[in-house]
């Protein structure tokens, strides 16, 4: 795509002004969109380091003269951000491990043996689109009966199930493009199917596993709805803390912004790592670049 195209300059000369005008429009639009994306982020980051007097000032302060980190310590310790951070880490990591392990096995089975035909595939895939509210009402009642509300296990279970479509389909696409001959060769050498999977297919699928893991982690890290309903004082995750900042009445802009920054950094960093596989992840393998 990026290779030199010697034909281009010639064309450009022919169409001259019109092309240049389109180029201007193009970069104005890109710049405008960049601004639209960055301004809210800038405002949030800057609010998180403003002293209280600055964020209540009436021409708004664009850059604080005396930046402070008090909001970060307050968010972590007075608003239980630290506990939320730890909960989020535990829940998202465990979800990632379980979802990817279980999802990889299923994906392998679907890709190599076509287990359950289209029906099983359809069923798993449609989980992705199930309205959360339809599931969470009965899950809440069932969790109540089994003492799973507001527990780490409860959150890990529900997140695993709802990240499974991603894990399964990322891995499915990966296994499908891997030649089956290597596994067959291992079988001929006397490996059982399990050994062929463990020693041949899995190592080859490692990049796919990393991608699936990142998507599962980001899902569990950013999910809000289930966390809001199924957690309260013990297993609350980072996003669900924002319920306590509601109303924008109290002057907690600094604390909430600090917490926002804290929770954004890991998921953005991870997301950018798998940038290349983003399209495949977003469309459950239907498209790839």
């Amino acid at each position, binding site marked *: 795509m990026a290779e030199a195209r010697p034909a281009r300059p010639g064309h450009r000369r022919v169409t001259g002004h019109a092309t240049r005008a389109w180029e201007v429009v193009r970069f104005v639009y890109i710049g405008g*969109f960049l601004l639209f994306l960055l*301004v809210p982020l800038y405002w949030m980051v800057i609010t998180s380091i403003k002293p209280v007097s600055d964020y209540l000032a009436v021409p708004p302060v664009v850059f604080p003269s005396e930046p402070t980190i008090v909001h970060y310590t307050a968010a972590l310790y007075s608003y239980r951000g630290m506990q939320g951070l730890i909960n989020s880490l535990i829940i998202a990591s465990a979800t990632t491990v379980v979802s990817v392990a279980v999802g990889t096995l299923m994906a392998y089975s679907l890709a190599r043996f076509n287990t359950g035909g289209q029906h099983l595939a359809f069923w798993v895939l449609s989980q992705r689109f*199930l*309205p959360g509210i339809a599931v969470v009402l009965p899950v809440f009642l069932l969790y109540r009966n089994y003492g799973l509300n507001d527990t780490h296990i409860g959150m890990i279970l529900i997140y695993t199930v709802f990240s499974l479509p991603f894990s399964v389909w990322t891995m499915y696409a990966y296994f499908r493009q891997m030649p089956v001959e290597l596994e067959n060769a291992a079988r*001929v050498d006397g490996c059982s199917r399990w050994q062929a999977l463990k020693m041949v297919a899995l190592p080859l699928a490692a990049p796919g596993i990393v991608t699936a893991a990142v998507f599962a982690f980001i899902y569990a890290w*950013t999910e809000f709805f289930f966390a809001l309903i199924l957690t309260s004082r013990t297993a609350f995750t980072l996003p669900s803390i924002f319920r306590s900042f509601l109303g924008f009445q109290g002057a907690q802009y600094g604390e909430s912004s600090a917490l926002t920054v804290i929770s954004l950094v890991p998921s953005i960093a991870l997301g950018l790592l798998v*940038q290349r596989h983003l399209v495949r992840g977003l*469309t459950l393998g239907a498209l*790839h670049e």
Partner: protein
Amino acid sequence: MNQQRAAEAPAGAGVSGRSRGKSGRRGVVSAWVDQHFGVLLVLPAVILIVLLSAYPLVYSLWVDFVNYDFQIPGHAFVGLQNFKDAILDPVAGTALVNTVVLSSAMVALELVLGLLLAVAMVRPFRGRGIVMPIFIMPLFMSPAIVGQFWGLLLQRPFGPTDYVLSQVLGHPVTISWLTEAPWNYLAVVLADAWQWTPFMFVILLAGLTSISHELYEAGQLDGASPWHTFFKITLPLVAPILLLAVAFRLLDAVKLFDIIYIMTGGGPGTDTYTAAFYLYERGFQEFHLSQATAGSWIFLILTIPVITVLVRRLLRPEAA
């Protein structure tokens, strides 16, 4: 079908037969495992989905027809009363209309902005590698957090939006973006478009990239205007991918909850209730669990046709 390529390898014959001979009971077990390998591998996932998704849904069917209300003791059979309550509730109507209007507005806006951005970004330029990561960042954020900082930007009196608008327009602007119609709808749509336009963009960019350059060059040689090229060549070619992206977004947009909860709280009154927010309020704030469950089944049934079409499309082997 090449899906079954692996199955052609002899299952019980030659290979596992040899290992069975070698090591007695272990061999029998491993031969059994080999024979049922496909099923064994899907078992953990299937069990999890059954326990946490299929079983709860079936259980909720029972909840639909009984009294399950934390304010009224007992689980007496009430027939269709819960459905009647849900359908006749005027707030449910408001919520449904809001859901349809807001999700259409969001997806339409995201589609237009995202398509334009994809067209603008498809040809390489210096700095594209720096701009790309910024454009996709919102996809890795919690919608609750996006709602949070849009609220920060728009709230009155300390948010900068009204101040900046006053300066630009030259007269004082005092819009309560989060509590005043129609601005609160606009605020919610803007926040959603901020987060999900990148989704449209990324998918459409992949679609545009896959269109061969020869087509464009043929068009250019014929002296076609960019306008003409866009509508006659580009758009028809990306149409299938565009529909896929729209279906994905639409199915997520109708579940709109997080930014409503954070930015407007459904208010003022019940003005910005969406379907998901309404069901949440009925179920988890007022604890009319049966009525909410009945409502959620109605909602589910309304979305199932779209889900079915999209998933079937995703399962087609040569997608896109």
